[in-house]
């Protein structure tokens, strides 16, 4: 691996540290009675309100439709995720240090696995909260379920629900993309062995989008 690729991979790994300081995902609820909005942040290790009491308030409102109380302590993923991310950071740095090209592909596969598992898991939790409703709920609308979208906006009764990746999620995505670019570049460099150095650096420029 070239020095530059190793440095990029190290940076990609370190970029993942952002998820420890800013949320991965953001679910925003807008309703006529909530001009100030209500929101939830999903972090790597916790769920918090956009404003300090939003989780409390959202849980209070959700009981009308029979949704289970969102208690972050009951979601085991939140205790595991910080270690998974830590592993990705550490292993990414080790791959960069080793400079062994095949390991980059392995690291990216693991990373992709984590990303997809995370998204599927998030979807399943959303599905569970949105469908698994108390039959005694005060508000029952035939055929209505309350699963928030994975990404995008959906009107759920009076709540316009918007779900988007937040800075942490974007950082993770960017980290993964950087890794992919490094891999592509390394692969191209390998194929073009024997070409002039100038051409290599041109290809580098193109691959990095500059």
């Amino acid at each position, binding site marked *: 691996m070239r020095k530059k690729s190793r440095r990029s991979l190290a940076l990609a790994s370190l970029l993942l540290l952002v998820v420890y300081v800013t949320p991965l995902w953001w679910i925003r609820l807008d309703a006529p009675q909530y001009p*100030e909005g209500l929101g939830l942040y999903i972090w790597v290790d916790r769920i918090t309100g956009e404003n*300090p*009491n939003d989780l*409390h*308030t959202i849980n*209070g*409102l959700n009981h*009308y439709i029979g949704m289970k109380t969102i208690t972050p302590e009951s979601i085991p993923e939140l205790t595991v995720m910080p270690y998974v991310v830590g592993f990705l950071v550490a292993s990414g740095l080790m791959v960069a240090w080793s400079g062994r090209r095949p390991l980059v592909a392995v690291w990216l596969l693991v990373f992709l696995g984590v990303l997809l598992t995370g998204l599927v898991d998030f979807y399943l939790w959303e599905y569970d909260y949105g469908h698994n409703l108390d039959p005694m709920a*005060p*508000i029952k609308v035939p055929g209505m379920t309350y699963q928030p979208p994975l990404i995008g906006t959906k009107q759920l009764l009076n709540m316009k629900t918007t779900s988007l990746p937040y800075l942490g999620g974007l950082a993770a995505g960017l980290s993964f993309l950087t890794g992919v670019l490094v891999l592509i570049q390394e692969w191209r460099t390998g194929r073009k062995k024997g070409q002039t150095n100038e051409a290599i650096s041109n290809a580098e420029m193109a691959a990095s989008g500059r």
Partner: protein
Amino acid sequence: MWNRSSLMKIGYALGALAVGAFLLTECGPKKDMMGAGDAAARVYVAPGEYDEFYAFLSGGFSGQVAAYGLPSGRLLRVIPVFSVNPENGWGYSEETKPMLQTSNGFVPWDDSHHPELSMTDGTPDGRWLFINANNTPRIARIDLGTFRTAEIIEIPNSGGSHASPFTTPNSEYVVSATRFSVPIPDADVPVASYKENFKGTITFVKVSPEGAMDIAFQILTPGFNWDLSHAGKGPSDGWFFFSCYNTEQAHTLLEVNASQHDKDFIMAVNWKKAEEYVKQGKAKAWTSEYYHNRWDEKTHTAVSEKKTQVNMLDPKDCPDLLYLMPCPKSPHGADVDPSGEYIVGGGKLATVIPVFSFSRMLKAIEEKKFDGDAGGIPVLQYDAVLAGEVKEPGLGPLHTEFDGKGFAYTSHFVSSEVVKWKLGTWEVVDRIPAYYSIGHLMIPGGDSKKPWGKYLLAMNKITKDRYLPTGPELNQSAQLIDISGEKMRLLLDFPTVGEPHYAQALAADLVKQREVKIFDIMKNEHPYASKSEKDARVERKGKVVHVYMTASRSHFNPDNIEGIKVGDEVYVHVTNLEQDWDIPHGFAIKGTDNAELLVMPGETCTYKWVPKKAGVYPFYCTDFCSALHQEMQGYVRVSGASANVPLSYGTGK
């Protein structure tokens, strides 16, 4: 034949007639449509937008304070202060009852006169609003973060707190001077012994940086009627000016007997000197009973403390403390201009508005230009302290505020008008009618170092035909006048809560940024709080029953209670579990001789109930809280005093 131009002339003439007729019918003086022009647009605050100023109008005989937005005149909130308010349980809930405790016991009403904003460097800062109780002498402090009365201190040795609660430039003190002189200390003496036995007092209440009030000292004065006051500022900082009437010391038919002297006084008090005298130990400790009631934000409960002593300064032992400036006749206002140099007296029976000069006053004191004394206090020569007189301003000048651009505005009760005049030349430059009989007027920050000289609010005692009639009892009113230009313009008038005796206003941002939205339930230290539904329960201790009840959308916990007996003393402690802005819950039980509770998010309030008859009593949420508000209800079963129904309770069981 009619040619085209003669037809046009006829057309113009008809047009002019029509306009004239319109002016005659629609623009008579009574409707004051003249120049209405863009007035509507000037006071229009679009739905969802905010006013530029918060204005706090005292409620006078309502005992409360009403907050309005200016320029729209929209009522924002009525803040209960000295009068009970069944609407939200003020003075009825166990937590608020101690706030209205006095040395005369629980007093459910008062007459709130002069709101006064706390100041930093001589300008309103938006922390607190002080207000006096005229009848049972007290000063209240309202926290402008919560719009709640946070503290009430009783003023002992006073017959009525009127010249109050004016404050020093950094709110080091608020003052109270007695309107009625009385025997001090109070005693069983003939009223006719007034001259011999009756005295006045001026009280300086220290305000801590956190707002806590404490009586620092009182000054014994001759038995005059103290009316209004203002603190000096800038060069005159360290002095306070109090107007007085009844220097005749009459005790009956005051309207005649207290109107005989050509001149009464504005008294200058050197309060820095008073502080020194207190430090030197010149004050005597007087035994005087008074109450100090404070709201504890952590426990959401008022604590009432009885105090027994004040420091009393007798001017006899304190030279250079007090000076009297003669002021024609029965002055009301004692108003200090933004520079701190001029003190304007509003002699309500006078034909001039005298303006005193602070620098000339100091010089006259130095040169001992005295004209004898009154009650042992030196009287300065009128000409030696006068800066100028506004000649023939109007009838019944009362109170003056300033626009910060060199002009003063004085209300005139008898001629029912606001008169604008120039500081320095003392010339009247404009006048505008008030509908009717204006008392105080107010310019936002108009008694401070830096007025926002854009609007003036006239506060009127009589409204007669100004609004749709409502029988013999009519609301009083406030009128918003544009003072941004050379000529004053009436923009708006609106009825008010109680008597809008006086007001204070300031830029909205100074208050808006402080607003508390909810009380943090984790910080609720009320001894009977239930911080979650798990804490909900009922406990009996003999005949006393404590109900730990939670309220959240849309149920109470517990909502079924049995085992209460006739004659039990039941305390229902309702905690609102919401942590969401503007979601209060209410609470009331059928047939209780009590008012309802309105419980704010995170707060605990207590409802006392002594059931008199066996039966089933519904209770419910009285503040529309949610789609299922109507379902937010419960039952208490009350059994006979000797019944054996066991105590039980719950929700959803």
